[in-house]
């Protein structure tokens, strides 16, 4: 009985990474910014309640440095682990979409959920991300840069 339990659990644990790599592979097959399009319409339509808060961008910058820069880069230029946040797909996304991504993460791609940050802090992060100067970073799915 005990041995059966242990063997079952060990098999389950050994199987999980294999399932992970399979789902990770399928995740790599799609555009890195595709998760932005999955935000429900209701979430996309949400407006940033801190849009007019003069401190929101500065507070968001502090939060970005603490929680996001490790993967997305010091100036949001992207890195090996996470895409650039200066790309059109991000900069043209609605505040509600960015908030939804922050809240839900993109777990299959390695971005954790950030709902542990209180809602106002997530909106402060949105304010900061949208304050970044967009660089027309070429991506596979990006439309041609506008003049």
């Amino acid at each position, binding site marked *: 009985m005990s041995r059966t339990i*242990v063997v079952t659990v060990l098999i389950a644990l050994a199987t999980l990474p294999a399932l992970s790599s399979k789902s990770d592979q399928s995740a790599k097959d799609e555009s890195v910014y595709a998760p932005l399009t999955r935000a429900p319409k209701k979430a996309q339509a949400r407006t940033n309640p801190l849009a007019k808060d003069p*401190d929101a961008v500065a507070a968001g910058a*502090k939060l970005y440095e603490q929680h996001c820069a*490790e993967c997305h880069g010091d100036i949001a230029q992207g890195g090996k682990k996470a895409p650039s946040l200066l790309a059109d797909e991000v900069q043209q996304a609605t505040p509600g979409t960015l908030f939804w991504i922050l809240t839900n993460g993109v777990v299959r*791609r390695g971005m954790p*959920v950030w709902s*542990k940050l209180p809602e106002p802090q997530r909106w402060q992060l949105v304010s900061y991300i949208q304050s970044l100067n967009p660089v027309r970073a070429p991506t596979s799915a990006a439309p041609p840069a506008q003049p």
Partner: protein
Amino acid sequence: MLDATQLQLRTGRRRALPVPLFVRVSAFILLATIFFAVHARAQESPYIVTYDHYLEEPGSLEVEYFSTFGTQRAGNDFLSYWAEFEYGATAWWTTELYLDGQSTFGDSTVFTGFRLENRFRLLQQEHFVNPVLYVEYEQTSGADKILKEVEGHDVEADYSIPSAIARRERDRELELKLLLSKTFNGWNIAENTIATKNITGGNPWEFGYAIGASRPLALKASAQRCTFCPENFVAGIEMYGGLGDRYSFGLHETSHYLAPVVAWNLPSDWTLRLSPGFGLNDQSHRFLLRWGVSREFSGFGNTISRLLRGRQ
């Protein structure tokens, strides 16, 4: 009547692992992480027993030290401690190693075992309630007193046995937990259901619970770096206890605790936690004082990977 030291001498048993070695191993790993990893400021929950649904960030290592002072009727008070090394393997899988030890006043200091824990996030997105599956294998002696959870019919009297005798009992346990958690309006509400099977003997499945609620003192972040900003403090309360076993299920003949908790996320990348706990019935320790310190090192996985590949 023999005291614990005499008993230990008479039995001629060596300590399984001397405490200095345990301390040295922990210190080595801690120093290695400090030297080889960059750090990130933690945003940690204040719970000491209850788990919420948030896992370690991928590639990050969190090094934690916790301690519990427990009062003991009909026995000596004790100080137990454990080190945790928690690694985010993926965004949905966190794995962790625990090393446990305890000192009983007027008795002895012993290493009491280790635990290997894995937590799996079951759903990819946030939902009304977010489930996480917890699977742990533990190999501890009967002298273990870290009280990381209460299960079955754990009562205060179990902890009054002298360490030299208690440590002869070797337990190998499989522990499963279903962690349910939700964060709403800044409040985190978490509930853990625990099921444990001692796989060394014919003991029945034992059950326990832990529930917790917590909230940062401020929801908005301030624009400046600060030590005493209210958003750096998270306060809450947790309650935990046993639920008997499969033959005798319920809240009776086991112990229950209520414990306020507070965490302070310091700008210097450390998190401090404090939790005074109070026993709620005669089978519980009257008072438990728990505290902990932790630090998260992001990029640990990448650093180790680079070291193993011989690249800078």
